[in-house]
């Protein structure tokens, strides 16, 4: 169970030193960080079954979505976007652009393919 890692990433991405303040209620970047946190916890669902820290996090995330008026669907990013180069919404709607902004461009992204044809 790696819920502590999710917690740590979330804290790092929303700490004052990251340039992101939680009290900016509708901050696009905050919602991105929160969605990333939610995604991270969802991925731990199986291994963290019954873990009190995990279940607390799930409960807290639900509250935060509501408090900050964030939608649960939308872009996620595991890394903080520098505030000096805050992307426009249209840039956030481009997956490859988001990958670049999140700083993981050096990791070559892999794509999977599925096809259904013939009889």
């Amino acid at each position: 169970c790696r819920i502590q890692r999710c917690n740590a990433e979330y804290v790092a991405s929303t700490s004052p030193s990251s340039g992101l303040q939680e009290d900016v209620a509708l901050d696009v970047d905050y919602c991105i960080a929160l969605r990333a946190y939610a995604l991270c916890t969802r991925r731990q669902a199986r291994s963290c079954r019954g873990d009190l820290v995990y279940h607390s996090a799930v409960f807290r995330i639900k509250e935060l979505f509501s408090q900050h008026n964030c939608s649960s669907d939308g872009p996620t990013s595991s890394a903080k976007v520098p505030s000096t180069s805050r992307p426009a919404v249209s840039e956030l709607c481009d997956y490859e652009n988001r990958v670049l902004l999140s700083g993981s461009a050096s990791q070559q992204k892999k794509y999977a393919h599925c096809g259904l044809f013939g009889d």
Partner: protein
Amino acid sequence: PHLRTFRDEFQTCKVEGAWPLIDNRFLSVQVTNVPVVLGSSATATSKITVIFKSYHGCTDQKVYQATTEDLPLAFQDGTRSGGDSGSLTIVERGGSGVGRQVKIQARYMGTSIIVRRVGSYLTFAIRMPEDTLDFSEDSGGLQLCLHGCPRNELIKEHTLGRQSQQPRLQGTNTEMGPLRPPHQVYTVERATAKCRETLQVEDVYFQSCVFDLLTTGDPEFSMAAFGALEDLKALPPSKLKQNSPRPPRLYNQGVSDSSA
């Protein structure tokens, strides 16, 4: 139909009726397959429904549906894009000439989809970033693209060997309308020769082409495999190898080495 999963596995499946291909937080894809010939369990795709789920700030929920009668160049609500950002769009593809083609690009999730009509049926191809997929066993139950077909839906190798000895009659079904004139009967040799006209490499796509010809006897429908290969090439960047260095192998496929 023939299925190439996200894990690069090939299968030939029955999967008659409605089946989910993909169901995750971004989109849901469902297909309907109908029998193609009398006396065979083989089916082909007659309807494809793609639901692009709402993605905050990028697109509203959009539904695309294609049937054998209608391959629209728009979502069900009549629009050709989702939201104002232009990150979800539909365009018509030209090019290689195998059937009519529609390409849907969902930039917000790095995903492209191609839907074709080949002969009387539909084909589907999608490319998605791996990190948007959840390969875990818990990931949303049945998803053919993710987990492949259930074991009891696979068409076994021996089935073709028996059936290829007998002539095929084009079947009827409620969605495809009246009985069509029977197509010619292909022997393995003739089917192989026909498929060599369009597919140079004798890989799994080639074997699928042979299977389709033997099953339906419809030369137009045999182009489905060629179209699927074209779609794979048209959806870069892909890390998948198109031709395995190993001998061609259809995983639990309907074409055995001896028959193909």
